[in-house]
């Protein structure tokens, strides 16, 4: 008991000093002293959860049907392009009905070659060896492409990664804000934006797929048929964005938003808001060629399957710049420009959970939480002092050190403190002294049994440790499960409990043991007052 080597004292002292050092930047953050913390000392800080800092939390889920639809459309375009390449294969209408792509090959001699070329379009999947599309021939001339299960899973995963980046660019075009955008559970994206109290603007930015397409208007369509939703072969009927009826357009895409390099809100000659877009080289070439071939005809500017406007091509557009007009306000034109510039979402995202907290409520929570923490620390300290005297003082020193260590470790790992986390902190304060209570009660008991002082202290620490260990394992089990299943604030609570369990065993057992050993060695007491 008395043998407490010098190196151990130094080691424990070092750990504590480190904990205190690490916790200070978080404690002085936001106060007048935050500027005076020397730059050469650790700068780690605990980050505040949205429930304390204020801000918006959105959980987005991919619309699986839309993902499938978009994938089919992209494939359809790819196939159409491939079939036009030399040697050209003449096919009937490409159908995307029933979640698969099928078309008739007009010349039966070309069926095998078509299948060969379709197979080349499909990608092998790394692990399973399967391909992402299954190509089959039905009724000897109909080629059918069916998405494979593995391919769909893979496509969704890729789409989610792209979507995550797109969402980030839309919310934070300059890339300077401290926002969180992460994919979760395969088909979800978690968005956390501190400081934003009304998430409506956020949701508008995220809610738009922003798939921009330019297609020629089908002038051959019979207006009556169009109103009834029927389009000629090779065309489709799309509604106007402003609700003024519908229009028939060719299925084939002239140019799409994928070939944009930039989009900005501007004004047209009449001072109405519009959007200036700029194509990349390939897009500009394609746009120039199509407009050259179709001067005098109208083309439709289509956003997410709705026609924004259908202006006439007065002259070929060669420079790769174009204006999108429509009935915009400055704000909606700006939002659309941001969305277009950040790329289209490969999948439609729905908001399935939304939580916002104002900065004032967060501040109020911090304020009340800190006051409650300080008062409980003092209450527990006084209680321990009147119950155990000198040993209570040791327990109290350990308690304060423990508080610093918890904060220090949280800062080191840049853990997030949430409101339930503050509750976890207070709970840990109350429970951390349990180890000391166990030890001290055991020492009292051993002294009653007539053991000598040093022997009693030694036995007390030794016998109590078993129960301390087992009790803390039960805490770890429940806190670990909470950290695994919980989200956001609750996870913050679990993290504080987990850290608190580890630090409290260190401070309450090893640190107080050192204090007691040093005292006994120095003062050589003949009786214990405990």
């Amino acid at each position, binding site marked *: 008991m008395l043998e407490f080597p010098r190196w151990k004292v130094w080691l424990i002292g070092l750990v504590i000093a480190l904990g205190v050092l690490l916790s200070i930047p978080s404690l002085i953050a936001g106060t007048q002293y935050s500027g005076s913390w020397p730059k050469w000392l650790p700068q780690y800080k605990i980050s505040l959860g949205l*429930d304390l800092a204020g801000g918006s939390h959105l959980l987005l889920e991919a619309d699986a049907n839309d993902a499938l639809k978009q994938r089919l459309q992209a494939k359809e375009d790819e196939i159409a392009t491939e079939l036009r390449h030399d040697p050209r294969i003449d096919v009937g209408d490409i159908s995307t009905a029933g979640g698969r792509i099928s078309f008739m090959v007009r010349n039966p001699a070309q069926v095998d070659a078509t299948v060969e070329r379709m197979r080349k379009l499909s990608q092998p999947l790394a692990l399973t060896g399967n391909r992402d599309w299954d190509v089959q021939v039905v009724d000897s001339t109909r080629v059918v492409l069916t998405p494979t299960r593995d391919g769909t899973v893979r496509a969704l995963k890729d789409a989610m990664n792209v979507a995550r980046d797109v969402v980030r660019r839309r919310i934070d075009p300059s890339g300077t804000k401290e926002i969180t955008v992460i994919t979760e559970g395969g088909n979800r994206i978690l968005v956390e934006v501190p400081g934003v109290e*009304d998430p*409506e603007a956020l949701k508008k930015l995220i*809610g738009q797929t922003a798939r921009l397409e330019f297609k020629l208007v089908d002038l051959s369509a019979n207006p009556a048929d169009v109103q009834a939703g029927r389009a000629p072969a090779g065309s489709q009927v799309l509604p106007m964005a402003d609700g003024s009826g519908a229009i028939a357009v060719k299925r084939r895409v002239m140019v799409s938003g994928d070939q944009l390099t930039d989009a900005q809100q501007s004004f047209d000659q009449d001072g109405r808001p519009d959007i200036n877009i700029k194509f990349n080289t390939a897009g500009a070439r394609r746009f120039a060629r199509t407009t050259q071939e179709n001067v005098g005809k109208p083309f439709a500017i289509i956003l997410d399957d709705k026609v924004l406007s259908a202006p006439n091509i007065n002259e070929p557009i060669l420079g790769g710049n174009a204006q999108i007009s429509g009935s915009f306000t400055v704000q909606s034109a700006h939002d659309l420009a941001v969305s277009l510039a950040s790329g289209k979402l490969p999948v439609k995202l729905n*908001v399935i*959970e*939304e*939580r*916002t*907290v*104002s900065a*004032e*409520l967060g501040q*109020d*929570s911090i304020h*009340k*939480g800190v*006051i*409650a923490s300080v*008062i*409980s620390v003092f*209450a*527990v300290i006084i*209680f321990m002092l009147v*119950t*155990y*005297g000198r040993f209570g003082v040791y327990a109290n020193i350990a308690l304060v050190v423990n508080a610093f260590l918890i904060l220090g470790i949280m800062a080191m790992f840049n853990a997030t403190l949430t*409101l*339930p986390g*503050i*509750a976890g902190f*207070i*709970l840990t304060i*109350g*429970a951390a*002294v*349990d180890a000391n*209570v*166990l030890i001290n*009660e055991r020492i009292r*008991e051993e002294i009653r049994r007539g053991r000598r002082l040093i022997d009693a202290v030694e036995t007390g620490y030794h*016998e109590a440790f*078993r*129960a301390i260990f*087992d*009790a803390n394992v*039960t*805490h770890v*089990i*429940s*806190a670990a*499960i*909470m950290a695994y299943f*919980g989200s956001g*604030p*609750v996870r913050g*609570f*679990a993290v504080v*409990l987990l850290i608190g369990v580890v630090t409290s065993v260190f401070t309450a057992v090893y640190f107080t043991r050192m204090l007691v050993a040093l005292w006994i060695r120095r003062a050589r007491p003949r009786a214990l007052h*405990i």
Partner: protein
Amino acid sequence: MKLLKLVPDHTNLDFMRWRNLALVLSLIATVVSIGYTIYHGLNLGIDFVGGQVVRVEFTQPVHIEDLRSRVDRLGVGEASIQALGNDRTYQVRLPRPQGPEAASNAVVSKLRSAIPQVYPGARVDAGESVSGKVSEELAQNSAIAVALAMLGIAVYIWFRFEWQFGVGALLTLGHDIAMTLGFFAFTRLQVDLNVVAAFLTIVGYSLNDTVVIYDRIRENLRKYRKMAILPLLNLSLNETLARTVVTSLTVLIALGILMLIGPQVIFGLAIAIFLGVLIGTYSSIYISAPVLVWLGVQPDSFLKSDEKEDEAATQPA
């Protein structure tokens, strides 16, 4: 300085004398608690049933009926309004709208802009909207988490002690959780994710006492091999009583302060853990220990297990 001794030295209470009565009473209380919870249901927050909530902070006291009639006139649907701690903070809760997901958040926005117009200076402090899908998952995950934590801890106790102790721990936990649920059903306090976090904490902390008492029972079973089981349990409970009282008090003091002056948002969490610790202290004495008698733990149980360990090589269990 005279030190405070809440439990005098040489305390020797005959806890086990009342064990059957206590067990019967606990059983009745548990059954009533579960029955009441099933019959009346819990006041589940939007975390578990979906819906929308805004929390409004007014600059001056507002009458709940006044607020209700004004919110009704906004035409946002059946609103339930609840004061949060005082007459200047209210929670307006709206059911999950039927129909497309996109519409679900529109109502919160409507309230957000409408309330400050009707009550100048009022501030919407928080808004939440949870879809049916998410709430179902949260409810399911919460139930799994609590069940898993209970089982995990029971298995650990079994592993560290004997199977009877594991069963005792599980029954104790079941009792504590059932009683706390009953309390929430009875008081109509809202059950949200924080309260589930509290339940998980109770699972960890209410067992704290049980573990300490079991540890002492095990120690005494080895030490006094001739002693009958009931006096041995009494001895163990009395020896650990001072610690039980002191620890429970420190935790209750800390949580009580949090409950009384802490942020209102986590009142549910604080009161649940407070109650759980209180119930846990009782059940560690009157459920954990008597269950061992009931499951036939005898002074020679551990003797046998010691011998079993020695013979483990030749006699696989």
